[in-house]
């Protein structure tokens, strides 16, 4: 037996076999081999059939960030197959469970069925699969020709014997390759040997099915005998269902049933769960659903159904005003403050000669992915099927098990394409709701669709965050000598501490947070916590620079001059050069700068930093135009240049919309906004020119996140530009609800 491959702290055996008349290769956890009852079948990662097609099983869902394509690229890096022969399929969570993590080489639960595709261990696992397959194909050809495998070159799905010029395709030897035993697994290529990774940017493999309409998202699932459900949850989060009058919709066409979801009923399976995010954030809201033969019938009947609700404790928070006032008022008391970070000693701040102090506020925002929440579930006595587009398939799998009470080996999740997530599809509260409805109508697949209004009003929002920031400035340099942040919100996403400023540049820091009891539920919104703090932080630093009388770029450059990760200074210098910082502009037109980072996790050389310069103009009447956003960044190294550019462009637009437009408000304890007429989105005509520059890259050995970082930086860059154009400092979002006029 060959030595197992080590990935992270777990070891895997490379196992091969025959599937569909061809070659199949798996990574099987060494642990699974020792356990009785482990499945004997293969969990193929890659299958090569006699027709030369290479099928790659990818665990990571494709949510629009190219994760699936990236996995294929890492395998192709080693396998040397023709790119056009690659097909991708989603790996099965059920098989992963049964094989003790056969598709999860990092952590048995979380790592592979969600998250970032470029993580080091992930790329290495995929490369190993490709390399191990390639060497077996070569060995099979060597056997057939009776030559040494080392004399064979594998390229473009063809095996060539260099001396004789003989050729075989991968498909020709696929069946033989399954029987090959290697003395040792091949080593994988190191980054300096890569030919594709880091060098090529193929168009995403999902795009052909997107542009002809054949791609299947969750909402496109059609299975035999399927029925549709329209959903209404308690309009006040945390409320209870009082009663409904089914007689009013009796006889409406197509209506099959009215079912309810009770948050208080006992649920669950008596076993240890491996749900990556747990169940606490997935608790259902009280709900009524109408089930009908067609969606429009269900929708009409639900509209006609009289329902009465008990508003519950949410009645205490009737309006946005009351919620925001409470958040700001909470900043004045330290009684219930929880300490987040203490560095050095901030006591000097109270008596400092030069002090800056300001209060900031961000509103509730909805992730609003363009595909409304939905899902299809079939619950029978002995199995549960779920067709769904979650951001993390493993989470969906466990939640489906928990809600239905079905043991995980009898739960089958069919991952679809995902029409945007941005955090809303991460925790799988939507999966719980789908299964909760379907289990009341067992035996037929139930396709539950949230209307846009239902989805927006039943959100898990970017929380309202209030913060008071104070800094003392050095009398000579004007740089901050101490910094205090007091913060209040409901939600577990304060990330004030995760920035380079507090790892040296500002020597004394204290940050604390207050938890507020609002009924409106928070949730992960692209760059959780960070999307608020980056705005506050970078507006505040700009205010400090202004108080110090120093140019905002110089101010930041001085702060980061000695920071161990050169990416901060490089990004600032690159973006300043590219955008021609300080260029002369007419009155009412100005540039603004911001820099922020995501994913540092308290480490100086981790994460991704993004520096943005925005150029805006504001008319005297207060009409804003964002002309251009320039961005430079450092994520260490780049694996797929064009995809990185695409995600930064999109992330800047997302962050810009958040800063300019987005606010969910509350009246009568209910969410007011329901659709894009009241929750506006930027359109083509509003989108500024965007330039993504690569000159900030430090080249340090990491491939950090790209999706979240630009979301935090766009807003403060624009806000700081508005200040320089108008003299108006924006300390709240969204900007477009504020008066920007100037004289």
């Amino acid at each position, binding site marked *: 037996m060959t030595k197992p491959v080590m990935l992270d702290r777990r070891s895997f055996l490379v196992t091969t076999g025959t599937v569909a008349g061809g070659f199949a290769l798996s990574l099987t956890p060494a642990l699974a081999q020792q356990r009785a009852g482990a499945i004997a079948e293969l969990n193929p990662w890659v299958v090569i059939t006699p027709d030369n097609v290479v099928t790659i099983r990818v665990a990571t869902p494709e949510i629009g960030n190219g994760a699936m394509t990236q996995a294929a690229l890492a395998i192709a890096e080693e396998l040397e197959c023709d790119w056009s022969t690659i097909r991708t399929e989603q790996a099965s969570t059920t098989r992963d469970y049964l094989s003790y993590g056969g598709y999860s080489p990092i952590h048995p639960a979380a790592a592979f069925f969600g998250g970032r595709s470029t993580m080091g261990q992930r790329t290495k696992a995929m490369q190993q699969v490709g390399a191990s397959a390639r060497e077996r194909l070569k060995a099979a050809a060597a056997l057939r020709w009776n030559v040494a495998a080392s004399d064979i070159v594998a390229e473009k799905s063809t095996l060539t014997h260099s001396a004789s010029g003989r050729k075989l395709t991968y498909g020709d030897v696929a069946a033989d390759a399954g029987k090959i035993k290697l003395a040792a697994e091949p080593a994988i290529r190191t980054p300096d040997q890569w030919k594709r990774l880091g060098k090529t940017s193929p168009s995403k493999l999902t795009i052909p099915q997107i542009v002809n309409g054949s791609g299947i998202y969750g909402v496109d699932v059609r299975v035999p005998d399927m029925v549709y459900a329209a959903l209404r949850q308690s309009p006040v989060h945390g409320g209870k269902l009082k009663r409904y009058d089914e007689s009013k919709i009796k006889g409406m066409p197509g209506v099959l049933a009215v079912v309810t979801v009770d948050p208080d009923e006992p649920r669950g399976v008596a076993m240890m769960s491996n749900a990556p995010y747990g169940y606490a954030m997935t608790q259902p809201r009280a709900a009524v659903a109408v089930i009908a033969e067609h969606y429009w019938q269900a929708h009409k009947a639900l509209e006609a159904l009289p329902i009465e609700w008990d508003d519950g404790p949410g009645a205490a928070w009737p309006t946005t005003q009351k919620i925001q006032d409470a958040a700001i008022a909470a900043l004045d008391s330290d009684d219930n403050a929880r300490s987040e970070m203490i560095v050095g000693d901030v006591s000097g701040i109270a008596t400092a000669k030069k002090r800056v102090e300001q209060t900031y506020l961000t509103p509730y925002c909805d992730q609003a992915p363009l595909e409304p929440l939905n899902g299809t579930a079939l619950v029978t006595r002995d199995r549960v099927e779920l067709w769904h587009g979650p951001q993390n398939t493993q989470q969906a799998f466990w939640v489906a098990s928990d809600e239905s009470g079905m043991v995980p080996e009898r739960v089958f999740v069919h991952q679809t394409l995902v029409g945007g997530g941005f955090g809303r599809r991460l925790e799988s509260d939507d999966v719980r709701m789908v299964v909760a409805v379907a289990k009341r109508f067992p035996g037929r697949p139930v396709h539950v669709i949230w209307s846009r209004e239902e989805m927006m009003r039943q959100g898990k929002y970017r929380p309202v965050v209030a913060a008071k920031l104070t800094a003392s400035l050095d009398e000579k340099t004007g740089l901050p000598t101490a910094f205090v942040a007091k913060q209040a919100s409901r939600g577990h996403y304060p990330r004030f501490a995760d920035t380079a400023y507090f790892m040296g540049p500002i020597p004394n820091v204290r940050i604390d947070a207050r938890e507020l009891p609002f009924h409106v539920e928070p949730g992960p919104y692209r760059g959780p916590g960070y999307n608020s703090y980056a705005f506050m932080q970078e507006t505040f630093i700009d205010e400090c620079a202004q108080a110090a009388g120093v140019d905002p770029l110089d101010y930041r450059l001085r702060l980061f001059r000695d920071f161990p990760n050169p990416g901060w200074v490089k990004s600032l210098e690159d973006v300043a050069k590219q955008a021609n910082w300080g260029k002369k502009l007419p009155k009412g037109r100005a540039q603004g700068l911001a820099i922020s980072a995501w994913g540092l996790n308290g480490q100086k050389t981790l994460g991704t930093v993004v520096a943005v310069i925005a150029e805006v103009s504001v008319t005297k009447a207060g009409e804003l135009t964002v002309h251009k956003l320039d961005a430079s960044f450092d994520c260490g190294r780049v694996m797929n240049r064009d995809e990185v550019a695409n995600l930064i*462009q999109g992330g800047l637009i997302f962050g810009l919309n958040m800063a300019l437009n987005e606010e969910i408000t509350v009246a009568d304890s209910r969410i007011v906004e329901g659709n894009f007429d009241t929750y506006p989105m930027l359109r083509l005509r509003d989108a500024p020119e965007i330039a993504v520059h690569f000159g900030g890259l430090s080249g340090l050995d990491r491939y950090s996140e790209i999706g979240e970082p630009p979301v935090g930086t766009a807003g403060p860059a624009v806000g700081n530009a508005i200040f320089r154009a108008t003299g108006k400092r924006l300390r709240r979002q969204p900007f477009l609800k504020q008066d920007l006029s100037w004289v």
Partner: protein
Amino acid sequence: MALEFKINGKSEAIEVDPETPLLWVLRDHLGYTGTKFGCGIGQCGACTVHLDGQATRSCQISAADAAGQPIRTIEGLSPDSSHPLQKAWIEMNVPQCGYCQAGMIMAAAAMLETVHNPTDEDIDGLIDNICRCGTYTRIRAAIHKAAAEARKA
């Protein structure tokens, strides 16, 4: 009530409530799921189809009004994804999640039927669809590229 729909050159007669929006007739009754549901109120454009050659938000027109008129959906834009817009979208890696893109392509295709060399202002004025992933930079570039290709052909 039985209504007849002419979709991508094919006639299909079905029993349907005449007030059902065309969007749901297409998606749920007839299986043309390439036309997407995004908002249901005419805001997002994910449901854009061609109705008698005009870009139309199918959530805003009833089955009764659409019946009998020629309808083109994304599935019928070209038999083999060879429309210049489809080719440009693939080449330029335009989509992220992709959910808005069928509607974008249908809106752009209707525009290119009459405006062969669209300016940025034409694009801004005629294409009002939402992309939550923010792929506007690439959408604009791909429309220009497809228009140039179409003019060459």
